[in-house]
């Protein structure tokens, strides 16, 4: 019987398999940041251990770094200590680090692909759940906790029980104006936050094949939001074209050998998945969340649901709690929800294509007077590229804030947070209570919805802007 893509990648990395025990998997790339690594390095030090493969390890500073005044010492002393600790650990253990101020600094999941370090068929881990992003290249990539970070540092391996496999097939083509973000938010609303638990998911079908590399990263990024161990997409010409020529990509004969191998990384026709979901992408529309987990979403054209409409009691209670927290009434059209802050950025939607898309919608418009728009590039390279293309001017002319690179308001570990009761439309990945600041209320949205919302001040899509323009002309 044939094997699925994820089984092929898994099998290639088994160092040791023993019945009754998890497999010992070799890890091709270990990404590190300041928040989940200090205790792991401490563990190494206590046990007198070293980093086994510094040459397969890369560190960057992203979670708590400021997006203003990044050339000055970090103002928050606790954040500064954490960043300084990473710098000391990287120096002591010989790990390559891209610190604040370095041209290759940025969100760890933007930096890996950008450098060409993320390649098909790899195993990639990081002490961050959005490591699933790298699955877009046909890699098995997943988040780990700090004990596992220490384990990988010491051994370059991880003990892992083999997950089940699931196919998510997205048929048809996404309609114009509907993005990868809408696709994945629709999927999560369909499965719930636990639907992927215990599975490595392969996204496939025409709508996935048609996505750019960066859009594929958006989909895989949110695999964790429906509980999947990892999510991946078979590598194809789109993947190879994206990687070729990047700083750490193979060259010459190595490139030929790599591509020859990567072309074998597809699910065999006779392979059987443990589970399969099929969704029609051609019927998808802009999708937004109304609640406090990523599965609580509806089409932008719909209304806030009535908790009483949920059959399952847990879902009903969860919806009641969510509406109370979000300050929303059942039956309110989503388009009437007033938004205070729009955040464009994060490892979900902070890459150059996202910024180009946002700028293309915002160009010639002004940000609503009662709304603030924060645009935070995912990396310094993304920021520089955007400036070269003049995107920063478009944002600044519209009245937006143009910031430095980092995780920023996605999780509010740096000064970019919501005030209690403040409402955001955010291109990030989590709408949990307090995620963007204590008492903050988050609606997860796509980049086009974020841009249109910033202009109108209420949840909107670019189609709403055109309608306004037509009325004005008439």
């Amino acid at each position: 019987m044939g094997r699925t893509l994820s089984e092929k990648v898994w099998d290639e990395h088994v160092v040791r398999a023993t019945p009754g025990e998890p497999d010992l998997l070799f890890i091709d790339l270990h990404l590190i940041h300041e928040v989940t690594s200090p205790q792991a390095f401490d563990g190494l030090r206590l046990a007198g251990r070293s980093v086994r493969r510094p040459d397969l390890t890369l560190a960057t500073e992203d979670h708590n770094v400021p997006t203003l005044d990044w050339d000055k010492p970090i103002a928050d002393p606790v954040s500064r200590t954490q960043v300084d600790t990473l710098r000391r650990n990287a120096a002591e253990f010989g790990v390559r680090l891209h610190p604040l101020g370095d041209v290759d600094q940025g969100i760890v999941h933007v930096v890996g692909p950008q450098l060409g370090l993320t390649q098909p068929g790899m195993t990639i881990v990081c002490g961050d759940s959005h490591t699933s992003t790298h699955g877009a290249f046909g890699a098995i990539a997943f988040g780990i906790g700090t004990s596992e970070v220490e384990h990988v540092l010491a051994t370059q391996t991880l003990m892992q029980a083999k997950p089940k496999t699931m196919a998510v097939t997205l048929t048809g083509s996404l309609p114009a104006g509907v993005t990868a973000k809408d696709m994945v938010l629709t999927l999560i609303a369909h499965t719930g936050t636990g639907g992927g638990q215990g599975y490595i998911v392969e996204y496939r079908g025409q709508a996935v094949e048609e996505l750019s590399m960066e859009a594929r990263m958006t989909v895989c990024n949110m695999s964790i939001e429906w509980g999947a161990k990892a999510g991946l997409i078979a590598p194809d010409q789109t993947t190879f074209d994206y990687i070729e020529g990047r700083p750490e990509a193979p060259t010459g004969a190595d490139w030929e050998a790599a591509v020859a191998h990567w072309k074998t990384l597809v699910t065999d026709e006779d392979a059987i998945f443990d589970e399969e979901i099929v969704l029609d992408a051609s019927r998808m529309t802009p999708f937004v969340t109304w609640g406090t987990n990523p599965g609580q979403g509806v089409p932008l054209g719909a209304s806030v649901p009535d908790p009483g409409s949920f059959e399952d009691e847990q879902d009903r209670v969860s919806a009641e709690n969510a509406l109370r927290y979000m300050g929303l009434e059942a039956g309110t059209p989503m388009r009437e929800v007033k938004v205070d802050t729009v955040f464009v950025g994060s490892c979900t939607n902070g890459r150059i294509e996202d910024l180009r898309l946002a700028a293309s919608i915002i160009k010639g418009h002004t940000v609503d007077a009662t709304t603030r728009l924060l645009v935070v590039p995912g990396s310094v390279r993304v920021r520089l590229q955007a400036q070269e293309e003049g995107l920063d001017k478009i944002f600044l002319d519209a009245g937006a804030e143009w910031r430095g690179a980092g995780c920023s308001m996605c999780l509010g570990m740096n000064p970019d947070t919501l005030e209690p009761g403040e409402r955001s439309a955010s291109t990030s990945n989590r709408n949990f209570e307090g995620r963007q600041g204590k008492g903050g209320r988050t609606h997860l949205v796509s980049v086009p919805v974020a841009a249109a919302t910033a202009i109108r001040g209420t949840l909107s899509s670019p189609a709403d802007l055109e309608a306004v323009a037509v009325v004005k002309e008439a």
Partner: protein
Amino acid sequence: MDAFISHTGIGVPLKRSNVDTDQIIPAVYLKRVTRSGFEDGLFSAWRGDPGFVLNNPAYAAGSVLVAGPDFGTGSSREHAVWALQNYGFKAVVSSRFADIFRSNSGKAGLVAAQVDEKVVQRLWELLESQPGAEVTVDLESRTVRAGDGPDAVHDSFDIDDYTRWRLLEGLDDVGITLGHEADITAYEASRPSWKPVTMRRG
């Protein structure tokens, strides 16, 4: 890591589903560089509510948390496990755990006991009608027990064999893996030369 055989302590009914890691401990509390001191951040958004279960003196010294499904979804922060442990929790009982949270628990020595949803409901009823009642989580027999008489709960829980064995023995994963170092070295020698590296050697 200390071995875990069985634990008996006050049960805390946390009647919520989808308790994500940002609820367990918000990101602003993740800036410490130690494994201790995270108890202040535990459920911090809810601790300000006088009605929150841990603010009830009968439950405040609890050590067995009984929560709704999809406990620990979201971030990979092991700080969520440390915060529970720092507060005094030894075990969490739920009908479904997020994968990374479950894995982190196993590594850090917190028992994540997965039970049928009906068992959670019965434990909630018991713990609410008898605040301060104790719950036993017995890893050796994989059972959870509480109360006596007609309302008594005595049921099995799921935890994978390997994690159970490691917890019972109190074993350190890294030490076990380094015992297989020859296998790792052999694997490394077989890796294709075109695989990427973050720094050139020599």
